[in-house]
C-alpha cells in the first residue's frame, strides 16, 4: 500500500468516524440524562437524512436541513413525552424493549413513506467527482463539510454543557437527579430536552453525511450499533472521548476493506464492540470507576 492510498483510507475513515461519533454523542446525551440507551438513536440519523431530502425538493439546501433538524427534534420530543415521560422507574429490560419497539415503528413508517430506495442530498459544494488536492491526497469537499460541522457540533456542545444554565441543569440531573430536583430543576423537562438535543444532533449528522453514504429506511440499525460501539469505546457518557473513539473505529473499518470483502465491513465494528464489552466495558478512555461513567 503506497502512502497516498494510506492517507486516502485515513480520510475515508475520519469521515465515517465523524458520523459514528455524532451518533455516539446522541447516545451519551440521553444516557447521561436518564441512564437509558436509546436503541432508536440510529433512526434519528436516518430520519434526518430522509426528511432533508424531501424538504430539499422545494426548499434551498440550508433551509431544508434546518427544517429537517427541527422536524426530527419534535419527533424526539414526542417519543419522550409519549413513551417515556410517564413511566415510573421502569426496569432496564423494559426500556430496552420499548426503545427497540420505537426504532421498529420509525423504520416501518419510513418504509411506508419513502419506500425502499436509497436517497441522498446533493453535495453541498461541487459534485460527487470534484476533489480538493491536499498535498497529494484527494478529498471530496463534502468530507470537509462533514468533519467541519462535526467539529463545530462538539465544540458547541462543550460550551453548552459548561457555560449555559440549561446545559448545567442537564449535567446536574445526570449527576444526581434527586438533588437536582431539590435545587428546583424540573428533571422531567430536562429529560425531554435531552431527547430533543440528541434527535437534533442525529438528524444534523444524517443530513450532512447523506451525500456520501446515502440513506435508506433501514440504515439506522447499523449506525446505532456502530455509534454504540464508539460510545462504549470512549466510555459511556463521555462525549469528547467519543470523538476519538469514532475516529479509531472509522479508520479501522476503512482499512478493513483493504483486507476483507466489503460485505463484511459491518462485522468489524461488531467484533470490536464484542471485544470491548468482554475485555474492558468501561472503554479505552474511561476509568473503571463508575462515577467517571456518569460525568459528562
Amino acid at each position: 500500500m503506497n502512502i497516498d492510498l494510506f492517507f486516502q483510507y485515513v480520510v475515508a475513515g475520519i469521515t465515517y468516524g465523524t458520523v459514528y461519533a455524532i451518533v455516539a454523542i446522541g447516545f451519551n446525551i440521553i444516557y447521561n440524562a436518564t441512564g437509558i440507551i436509546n436503541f432508536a438513536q440510529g433512526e434519528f440519523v436516518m430520519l434526518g437524512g430522509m426528511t432533508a431530502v424531501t424538504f430539499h425538493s422545494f426548499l434551498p439546501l440550508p433551509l431544508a436541513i434546518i427544517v429537517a433538524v427541527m422536524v426530527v427534534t419534535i419527533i424526539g420530543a414526542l417519543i419522550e413525552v409519549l413513551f417515556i415521560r410517564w413511566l415510573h422507574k421502569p426496569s432496564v429490560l423494559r426500556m430496552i424493549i420499548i426503545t427497540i419497539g420505537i426504532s421498529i415503528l420509525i423504520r416501518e413508517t419510513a418504509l411506508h413513506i419513502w419506500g425502499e430506495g436509497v436517497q441522498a442530498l446533493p453535495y453541498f459544494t461541487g459534485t460527487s467527482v470534484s476533489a480538493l488536492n491536499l498535498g497529494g491526497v484527494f478529498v471530496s469537499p463534502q468530507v470537509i463539510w462533514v468533519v467541519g460541522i462535526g467539529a463545530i457540533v462538539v465544540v458547541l456542545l462543550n460550551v453548552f454543557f459548561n457555560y449555559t444554565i440549561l446545559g448545567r441543569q442537564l449535567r446536574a440531573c445526570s449527576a444526581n437527579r434527586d438533588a437536582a430536583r431539590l435545587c428546583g430543576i424540573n428533571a422531567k423537562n430536562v429529560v425531554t430536552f435531552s431527547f430533543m438535543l440528541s434527535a437534533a444532533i442525529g438528524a444534523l449528522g444524517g443530513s450532512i453525511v447523506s451525500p456520501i453514504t446515502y440513506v435508506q429506511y433501514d440504515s439506522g440499525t447499523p449506525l446505532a450499533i456502530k455509534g454504540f460501539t464508539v460510545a462504549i469505546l470512549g466510555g459511556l457518557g463521555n462525549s469528547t472521548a467519543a470523538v476519538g473513539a469514532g475516529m479509531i473505529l472509522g479508520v479501522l473499518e476503512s482499512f478493513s476493506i483493504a483486507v476483507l470483502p466489503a460485505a463484511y465491513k459491518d462485522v468489524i465494528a461488531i467484533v470490536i464492540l464484542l471485544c470491548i464489552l468482554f475485555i474492558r466495558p468501561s472503554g479505552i478512555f474511561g476509568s473503571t470507576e463508575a462515577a467517571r461513567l456518569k460525568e459528562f
Partner: protein
Amino acid sequence: MKARYLQVLAFVALVSAIQLLTRVTDSAYHLTQLTMTAYYSVLIIGLCMLVGYAGQISLGHAGFFCIGGYIAAFLTTHDLSMHKGKPLVALLSKTGILASRPDLYGGNLLTFHSWAACVVAMLTALVIAWVIGGPVLKLKGHYLAMATLGFGTIVYRIALGTTLLGAADGISDVPPFWVLPGIEISGNASVRVMNYYIAWGLVTAGVVLLLNLIHSRAGRGLAAIHGAEDAAEAMGIPTARYKLNTFVLSAVFAALAGVLLTHYNGGIGPSEASVMKSVRYLAIVAIGGMANLWGSLFMSLVLNYLSLRGYFGTYDDAVFGCILILIMLFAPEGLIRRSILKDLKRFVSGGVAEETGP
C-alpha cells in the same frame, strides 16, 4: 398425575382438534403455516426459558436459528461427488454419513445425510453458544442486549455476504429430512398431516422437557437468578453456570428449529437472521408473559400463524413493533397472566396500573 401433565394433554388435544377442524372444513392448506408455526414455536419456548425464567435478554436468537438452518442446508446440498476419491470423503460415505441421491437432471449428488447434517448443525450451535455465552452472559442490561444484537447482526452479515451460502438468495433446493424410511420432513402436500404432527409433537416434547426443568432444582435456581442475581449467588446457586446452560439450551432449540424449518421449506435466506426476526421472537415471549411457557407458546401459535398467513400484510414488522411497545408500556408482565382479571378491574375503576417491576 401432576397438573402440568394435564396441561400437556390439553395442549395435545388442542393441536389435534385444530387438525380435525381443518379436515372437517376441508382447509388442509392451513396446516402448512401451522407446521411452520410449530418450528418457530420450538425457538420461542427455548427463548422463553432464557428471557422469562433466567431473565437474560437475547436479541440474537435469529442468529442461532440461521446457524442451524444454513449448516443443514449447506451440508445437504453441497455436492461432494467430485471429491469421491479423497480418503475422508470415502470414509464418510462408507459410514453412511454421506448419502447419494439423484438430482433434477438425472445425475448423482453426494451430500451429507440429513441426520448427519442436523447433528453437525446442532453441535455447531451448541459450541458457538458455549463459547460466546461465557463472556456475553457476564454482561447485564444494555450491554447484554447490544452484545446479542451484535452477534445476530454478524450472522446476518456473514449469511448475506458469503457467496458460498448463496449471498442474498440464500440456499434453495434443500432435500427433505429423512427421519426414518417412510417418514420425511418436507413441504410435500402428500405428507402434510404427518408433518403437522411431527412438528407439534416436537413442540410438545420440548415443552415437557422445559416444564420438568422449570420444576426442578435448576428451574428454581433460575427463578432466583431472575429475581435477584446477587442474592442467588449468595445462596450458593452457581449463577454463571445456570445462565450459560440455559443460553446453550435455548440456542440448541433455535438451531433445531432452523434445521427442521429449512428442510420443511426447502430453503433458507439471510432474512431469517435479520434483527427484526430476533425482535419478533422477543415480542412473542414478552406478550406471552415472559416467565410463562404456555403463554408464550399460545401467542407464538396465534401471532406466527397470522403473520405467516399474511394477515398483517406490509405492516408485518410494524405490528410486532407496536405489540412490543404496547405490552411494555401497559402490561410489562405480559398479556397472559393470572392477575389479568384483577388488573382489568383496577383499570376499569380508574386507577392506572401500578408498576411492579419486570
